[in-house]
């Protein structure tokens, strides 16, 4: 019998995605259900944030960092503040460092909740998504109370934080982490151990260590490939050197490595570690120190440049700023985790089923505005 002749078909996936990753588009060629090539087409959410960084003053640029990745605006604020503080040599009061660590880790939890919920939803499990979002709403409530905004916080400012914690806020945070700690096993019972979920993710979208390093994958995606690297520990900033926490990596301890499932489980484990960090911050909170911000009227760093990396929920968030000695930057470069995560799709996709491509993209937790900036 003669082999059946088949033809490649070019498929357009997007430019929207039936989930909450932002606007994505892929140009696929496939033979039946098998993907032959996949070209991500990005740029739909390009808002010229790097160019705006050259037009705005250093202080005025802070709200734009919210929009780099609106799922974890606190971490983006923080990363930018770190870079400018290093460039302009601005001190941060200790109280502010604690508040930054608390909101940063709470935002990591809420960002991972979105990631995990949408990951499950992309694979057809609808229930975990509202469960995850319900918990995220509680984090948003805490953020709203401290800074007035639920999504684009503009809370971490250059030289400290915008507002001190209102009365009773720290107790509310403690109540939240106490109850959320009990939610994680429940979330695991709901989806992590689910058989269908396993079959959709285990062994799917495998990114080995070598590929992950070559493509500059960062954050939980890199750690899922068995690379023991976390900027909070390895290039520490803030008060992280004083805190004790584990860094879950793919491999023996998790029982899964490289695949989509490892990337899922890593994020569940990271939420537990974030809880640990928040708890330590609450226990050691410097109540005696009252200052939460170094008052600055103007940020005018000397001529120079700086690159500061921070560990955002989606990986390395780095700000590369070149100063020309004025109040505006000469160049404002933002390196994000989703950018490199998206570039690896081109490499991993060939040979996957179309449905597994969705699983791959979901498990990488890409957020489109962070790719395009």
């Amino acid at each position: 019998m003669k082999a059946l002749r088949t033809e490649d078909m070019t498929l357009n996936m997007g430019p929207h995605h039936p989930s909450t990753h932002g606007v994505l588009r892929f140009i696929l060629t496939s033979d039946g259900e098998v993907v032959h090539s996949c070209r991500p087409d990005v740029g739909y959410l390009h808002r010229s944030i790097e160019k705006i960084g050259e037009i705005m003053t250093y202080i005025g640029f802070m709200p734009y960092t919210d929009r780099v990745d609106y799922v974890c605006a606190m971490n983006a604020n923080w990363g930018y503040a770190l870079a400018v503080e290093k460039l302009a040599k601005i001190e941060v009061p200790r109280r502010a460092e604690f508040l930054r660590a608390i909101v940063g880790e709470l935002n990591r939890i809420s960002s991972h909740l979105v990631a995990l919920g949408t990951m499950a939803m992309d694979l057809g499990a609808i229930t975990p998504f509202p469960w995850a979002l319900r918990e995220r709403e509680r984090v948003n409530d805490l953020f709203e109370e401290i800074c007035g905004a639920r999504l684009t916080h503009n809370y971490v400012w250059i030289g400290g934080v915008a507002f001190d914690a209102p009365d009773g806020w720290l107790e509310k945070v403690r109540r939240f982490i106490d109850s959320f700690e009990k939610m994680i096993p429940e979330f695991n019972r709901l989806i992590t151990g689910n058989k269908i979920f396993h079959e959709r993710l285990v062994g799917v979208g495998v990114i080995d260590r070598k590929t992950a390093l070559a493509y500059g994958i960062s954050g939980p995606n890199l750690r899922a490939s068995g690379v023991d690297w976390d900027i909070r520990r390895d290039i520490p900033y803030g008060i992280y050197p004083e805190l004790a926490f584990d860094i879950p990596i793919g491999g023996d301890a998790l029982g899964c490595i490289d695949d989509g499932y490892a990337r899922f489980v890593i994020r569940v484990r990271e939420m537990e570690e974030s809880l640990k960090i928040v708890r330590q911050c609450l226990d050691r909170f410097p109540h005696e120190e009252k200052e939460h911000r170094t008052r600055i009227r103007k940020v005018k760093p000397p001529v120079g440049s700086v690159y500061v990396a921070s560990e955002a929920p989606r990986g390395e968030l780095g700000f590369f700023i070149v100063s020309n000695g004025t109040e505006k930057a000469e160049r404002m470069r933002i390196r994000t985790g989703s950018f490199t995560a998206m570039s690896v799709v081109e490499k991993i996709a060939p040979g996957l089923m179309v449905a597994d491509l969705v699983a791959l993209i979901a498990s990488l937790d890409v957020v489109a505005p962070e790719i395009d900036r």
Partner: protein
Amino acid sequence: MNIEEVDSRLREGVPGGVLELHKGPYSPHLVVDAEKIREVCLFLRDDGALRFDYLTHLTGLDCGELLCTVYRALSLLHKRTVAMRAYVPREDPVIDTISDIWASAGWFEREAYDLLGIRYRGHADLRRLLLPEDWEGHPLRKDYVDPLRYQDIDNTRDYGI
């Protein structure tokens, strides 16, 4: 190993590769001969004492007469980073690609080409990344002027003031 030691190791491994060790006012970096960028990067990645196995980021800068590509590599093994710059003339901004040395450079170079117009020789797929393919100019250049129209869409706004 600090940047001086990386510098001297590189000078042994790739003679003429490093033009200058810049110590200020910008953050410390090596100024690399643009013609030898591939040799330098290969040596950084493969030399046993260096092992820079991860390209943190790559971007472009407009420095007036020159355009510059900024590289930052990381060695996870030794927990150290190195920053490099390679300058090319503005009239003919061409430099060899390193996208086959660190695959992440593939998209970074496309972005730098898109926004600054630096061309990476030997890049397998050097297309614009963020802007539409028929966009004119490179917006992160300092002399860039916003177009008034794009595909018959008016880019100006009449605010009546």
